[in-house]
């Protein structure tokens, strides 16, 4: 699949420690602001498909609020079960007032 770059202005306003979900052509993608560095990853938990952006971000760890699975937002790695698989992460960069995510 060809990679596409989407630009989002809304996420640029995300404060440190915050996480939001945006829709990228039908795929929910979460964006987290960890100390001024942005990370983009699949918003959908691999366990029971809850939105990860609904949970809390603690450092670089996002916790799913439904069943407690935890992921590293930098790599997508599972840090705590019951998630059976990692989440996808996407390259993201700041471009002026926007964020660009490569999907």
């Amino acid at each position: 699949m060809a990679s596409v770059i989407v630009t989002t202005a809304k996420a640029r306003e995300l404060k440190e420690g915050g996480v939001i979900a945006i829709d990228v052509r039908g795929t929910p993608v979460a964006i987290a602001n960890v100390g001024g560095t942005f990370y983009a990853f699949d918003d959908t938990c691999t366990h029971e498909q809850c939105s990860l952006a609904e949970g809390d971000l603690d450092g670089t760890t996002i916790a799913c609020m439904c069943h407690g699975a935890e992921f590293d937002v930098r790599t997508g790695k599972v840090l705590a079960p019951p998630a059976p698989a990692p989440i996808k992460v996407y390259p993201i960069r700041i471009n002026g007032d926007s964020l660009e995510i490569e999907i």
Partner: protein
Amino acid sequence: MKDSVHVIIGASLAGATAAITLREEGARGRVILIGAEAELPYERPPLSKAYLRGETPFEHAPIRPAAFYADHSIETMLGSRVTKVDSDAKAVEVDDGIRVPFDTLLIATGVRNRHIVIPGADLEGIYSLRTVRDADRIRAEMVSGRRAVVVGMGFIGSEVAASLRHANVEVVAIDPAMTPLFRVLGEPVGHRIADLHQKHGVRTIFEDTVRAFEGADRVRAVVTARGMRIECDFVVVGIGVEPVVDLLGGSRIHVENGVVVDEYCRTSVDGIYAAGDVANHYHPVFNRRIRVEHWHNAIRQAAVAARNMLGKRVPYDEVHWFWSDQYDVNLQYAGYHTAAEEIIVRGSLAGDSFLACYVNEGRVDAALAFNRGKDLRRVMPLIKSRRAIRLDDLRNETVDLRSLAAA
């Protein structure tokens, strides 16, 4: 020094987690995982929910892929029931006559379903749920328009009732208490759960018990103590569990409501540990013994037990936590309480999302989240801290619960 032999009884979530942790922590000797079921260790939570509804295949449920065990030199003995633990000679006996010596032993035998002892209990069409085989038998009965009676509205009964309704099975649910989940959640929250089931079409009968099952070969009706007769096509019974400890008869292992262990998961016999549903463990946060029959405890306590089996000294002091999904509602409970002086609610009990905090002497002992997992995770450090707080802060939704735990 020769390498130790670690034996684990129970190829379950707790048993598998202990085996995995032993290897992660560098155990060099043999790790032998003995299980009564034929399957490799698998996740049980889906059995009453997504698996029962036919939404996820069993292939999604293994705790680790089959190759993992060989790759990590974890020996599995499946379909093997341990009949005896010889705590003096340090060996377990398996029902096919094999004797397995150990240096350290973990008892993770879990619990078995309590049987209902009433006339007709041996009729066809009456099920309980613990294993994937049980779930398959219930699934085979779940045809739209059929009529089921669910006996017992604890977590299993409640989740099964929800899954049955999802399949458009007619459901009558019977429980001796005033509400579903009454023993754990108490009255106001219990009423909210009753309301949830009723709104999804479950006919509920509370404060009544089942006196008999009727039918020739197969169950055709359920008769209650108060004299109701409910015709049905099948029955699912979920009336609680009992710890599996019969194999410990004659051993020196102290048994009282399960296997008694300290905060290091140690039994009364050196080198023998217990974890998971079977372990009646001393919990330093609540300063009492607790036995917990939930997923999170199985996984976390077993990991601690494994570390201690390797000579470390790690206490198990996590706040207990569990979830239950029913219909479109995600319930989560954390902490431990038996009674509460006061229940403080964030949000509204009648609404679609709230957090109910069970409070004694100004301290939050436990909390129940109804579609509010984020608040539940935020209140857990407060529960663990045992701090007394201003209850108004708990009610006030603008106060971040995470701030209340800070000293």
